[in-house]
Structures are given as C-alpha cells and as structure tokens.
C-alpha cells in the first residue's frame, strides 16, 4: 500500500533523498532549492540518514566536491537553482566528461536579469549541452518518482553520466499537494547499492581521473560520451518499467496526453502541462481535438519518438519557458523543429515563449493557443515565434 501524504515538491525530493540515502552531499543553498540541503541536514541530525553532508562555500565547490566524492566511489548528490547552477558551470562539464553518476536536484529558476527568483527553465536549459542527463517533472509526485529512478539510470554501466532531476521553482517546489510515497522496503531494493566498476579508492586499481587528453584522444572520449547519452534512452525506459512494478505509475521519455487523434498539439515541459491538461479536457468536451506532448526526458533528447508521436497533428505549438535570443525561439523549439524537419513533418509549427521569471500561465491562455493553432492549421502563418501574455 502506498503512503498517502501531502507535501511540497522540495519536501518530496528531500524525502526521496532520505530513502535513497546516498553517501555524500556537498551543497550550497540557493532559493528556491535551499530547503533541500536544509531538510537533508535535518534528516542527518535526526539520525534518519547517514549521508556525509559537506557544507561548502560556493556552488563551484559543491560540484567540485561532488565530482571528487563520486570519482572516489561514493554515491553522491547535490541540489541547486539558477545562479548556483551558473556558478557550477565550469565543473558541470567536468562532471559529465569524467562520467561520474552524480544526481543533482535542480529547482528551476530564472537567471538574472532582471533579478528574479521565480520559475524559468533558463538555468538547466543553459546546461543542456554539458552532457548531463535531464529529467523534468510536472508536479511533486513526478519529481519524487524521478529522483528515485535517478541513480538507476545514471549508474547504469551503459550510461555512467550525471543526472539533473528538475522541477519548477516555487510552482511545484513550494506548493503543498497530495502525493503517494513508496515504502522504504520497496524503494531500497529498487534503488540498490552503488558498486562502481572503477573508482579512486580502489587500492587494487590505481588510476588517475581528470587527466589531460591530447587531441588524438579527446574526440573519441566525446563520442563515447555521446553514445552513452544515446544508450540512456533505453535504460530510462527499462528503469521506468521496473519502477512501475513498485509504484503502479507509468513513465516514458515523454507523456502523450490525448495525443493519438489530436489535430492540434502543445509540446511543453514542467508544471504548465497540468494546466494544459485541464484546458485540453475542456476543449475536447467541445469537440476540439487537442492534445499534449509533455517532455519528461530532455537529455537524451527523444527526437524520433516525439516526431512519431506528433505525426498526425496539423499544427503544433512548442512551448519554451526560456529565451535563447536566437530570434527564432527557445531551446525546445529549436531542437524539436530540427527533429520535425528531419522527420519530414508537414504540420505547421510555432514556438511560444511563456512563463519567464514566473509569469503565470492559465487554462485560458492554453485554450487561446489551441484557438490560434486551429487558425494556423487552416491559413498558415508567417509569425512562428511569439511571447505568451506579454504586457504591452
């Protein structure tokens, strides 16, 4: 029997951290992820976890310590947001290329400026080319479930990559909602112990980590990294299947909501997807064939799978909670449009930037997008990139 509870997204991730009980957590607090190291420190103080907590003096140090700990052979986690992730910038690449399977809870928040603490995906989207796995969540339940699956994916021998478990800052991190927790007796055997193949503290296999690589070797290392990212797709699906056995909840690379026969589709990431589902149900009741593709896994990017899921749509709106100043749209728009082109899709596709710095998105906003899509499907459009709810 699942444990019915109510908690915020941050409480949910902290609870998952407690259940997984990794060996080491170096962390430096930053809004809105501050509660994560706080809750973990409480659990440790109360004797409910025996994780080694390392209070560091910056996020750069947090990630550096995490790399050291993980390379040494310890299961390692950290948490951050926004400017904290930005300060880790140099070392997140080191983590990924060193192939250390760190799990990092990212509570998505805007990068400055103007200075703002609210939700935006610009922090983790900025790190999309760093070679980390990235999984996003619609609500507290999903971010809890994703964290429980994180190490099974990251530590898989065909993957061995660090993973970001992302949720929307404040919108889910600070909202108390119902949740179903899984009992420790089920979580522990599911997550299992970490037995690294190679690690620094193994006296029988002395090794160096992070050594200089000459040009003759670098490209091969990067190609191996890219292959590991590709491998992760199947591993994520396999882990999800096993997770379903203990939770009853189904996960894939993305969620297709009423998409099978949809004429018009929205593609989005995170909490806005719940709002979109309410809009879609209302529109379906009026006979509008609306659907949603909710991206769960952004790295690896499930390009072919998404294109196949969208193949019958007449018009698609790709939603980015992030601006990339390319004058063409956001990162999800750029990547999915490229995939649709390669997949020879014929749908009209637009890219909408929304929700920057916590700007709210309402059911009515989503309904308006579907109305626009119906019009675009019929008449086409030259305007393929705009801001939702911009004040004029």
């Amino acid at each position, binding site marked *: 029997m699942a444990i019915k509870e109510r908690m915020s997204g941050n409480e949910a991730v902290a609870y998952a951290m407690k259940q997984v009980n990794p060996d080491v957590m170096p962390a430096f607090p930053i809004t809105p992820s501050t509660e994560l190291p706080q809750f973990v420190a409480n659990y440790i103080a109360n004797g409910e976890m025996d994780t080694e907590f390392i209070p560091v003096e910056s996020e750069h140090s947090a990630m550096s310590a995490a790399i050291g700990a993980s390379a040494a052979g310890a299961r390692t986690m950290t948490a951050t947001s926004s400017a904290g992730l930005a300060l880790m910038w140099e070392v997140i690449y080191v983590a990924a290329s060193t192939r250390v399977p760190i799990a990092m809870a990212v509570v998505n928040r805007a990068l400055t400026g103007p200075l703002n603490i609210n939700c935006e995906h610009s922090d983790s989207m900025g790190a999309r080319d760093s070679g980390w796995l990235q999984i996003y969540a619609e609500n507290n339940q999903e971010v809890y479930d994703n964290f429980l699956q994180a190490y099974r994916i990251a530590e898989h021998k065909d993957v061995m990559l660090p993973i970001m478990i992302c949720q929307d800052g*404040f919108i889910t991190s600070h909202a108390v909602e119902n949740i179903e927790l899984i009992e420790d007796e089920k979580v522990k055997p599911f997550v299992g112990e970490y037995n690294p193949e190679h690690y620094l503290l193994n006296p029988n296999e002395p090794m160096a980590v992070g050594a200089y690589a000459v040009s003759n070797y670098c490209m091969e290392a990067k190609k191996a990294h890219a292959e590991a990212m590709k491998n992760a797709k199947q591993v994520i699906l396999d882990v999800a299947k096993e997770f379903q056995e203990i939770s009853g909840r189904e996960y894939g690379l993305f969620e297709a909501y009423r998409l099978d026969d949809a004429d018009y589709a929205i593609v989005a990431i995170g909490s806005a997807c719940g*709002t979109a589902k309410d809009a879609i149900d209302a529109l379906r009741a009026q006979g509008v064939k609306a659907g949603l593709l909710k991206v769960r896994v952004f790295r690896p990017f499930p390009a072919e799978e998404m294109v196949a899921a969208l193949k019958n749509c007449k018009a698609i709106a790709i939603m980015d909670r992030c601006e990339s100043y390319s004058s063409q749209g956001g990162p999800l728009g750029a990547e999915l449009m490229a995939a649709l082109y390669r997949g020879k899709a014929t749908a009209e596709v637009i890219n909408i930037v929304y929700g920057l710095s916590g700007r709210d998105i309402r059911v009515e906003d989503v309904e308006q997008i579907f109305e626009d899509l119906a019009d675009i499907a019929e008449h086409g459009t030259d305007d393929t990139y705009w801001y939702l709810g911009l004040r004029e």
Partner: protein
Amino acid sequence: MSSLTEIRWHGRGGQGAKTAALLLADVAFSIGKHVQGFPEYGPERMGAPITAFNRISDTQIRVHSNIYDPDYVVVVDETLLHGVDVTNGLKKEGGILINTSLSKEEIRPLLRGYEGEIYTIDAHDVCMRTLGKYFPNTPMLAAIVKVSGVMDTDVFLKEMEASLKHKFAKKPEVLEGNMKALALALEEVR
C-alpha cells in the same frame, strides 16, 4: 469540477497568511481531500502585501496557475482594503472574510461594488483573549473553514489538535492557546 473550492488569501509578510494556507491544505488533506496550498513569491519582506492560495477538491488537481476567480477571499489585514483589489474576480456566490472590528455595513463601501457575502471577525480580539499575542492567521484559518464549509468544524478542531500537537511537540504550552483561538474564532465569525 463542481467539488472544487478555490480560496485566495491576502495578508502582509509576517502575518502568517502563507502558513495558514498550508495549514488549511494540511487539514483538508487529513479528511481525504485533494489539496493545493501555495504562496505567490515576490520581493518578500515584513509588511508587504502577499497572496497565498488554496484549492480543495474531491478529485485530482492538475492546474498550476494562481487563482483569479476565487470562491472565497480571506483578508488577514484590513488595511489592504485601501490598496489591494481584494475582490478582483471573486465570485458573488462565494464570499469575502475580513479581519476587522468594523461592521459589515462599514466594510461594504470599501469593497468596490462587490455584491456577495461579507463575513467579518475581529482576529485581534480573539488572539488577545486566547493567545495573549497577535497571530491573526490562527483565527482566520478557523473562520474560513466555517465560512467556506470545506469541512465540518468539529472534525476541523479534532484534526487541528492532532496536527498542532505534532507541530508543537517541543512547545506543548502553546497548544491550548491555539486550540482556544480556533474554537473562539468559530463562534466569533459573523
């Protein structure tokens, strides 16, 4: 969908409107409801106007936007009536609950033409008679439970006692005052 009740809280930073919203979510959860309790975060500081929100439903809640057309509004600090459009979008079938010592007749002209029910409670008086300190969120929580009818008030008191016992495990002396404040607020709300 008809089972959904949406509540918007208006308070000032430091008065506990956010805590009250989270407590309401907690207590509604305890009787098997689907709940949401969340604040809107701005430049948080003592005394600045803040909003917090509750959705309480018999079915799963998926929407993640703020609440624009609430069934009920709670005003924790009556000075907000002069600067914040607290009745904006408020359904006239619902109502507004205000912490004030004024009468409904005196309050009505401050509500920009709102036609629905007005409920009042003097949370300061309730606090002084029970807690000896001003924590307006406690009486406001009890009052909105009664006004909105989201749960039976006896069940509410029972669940709150269990919850506060847990919350104040290290400060049991504050339990009695809080319980008295909740009970008195249920009587005093007009």
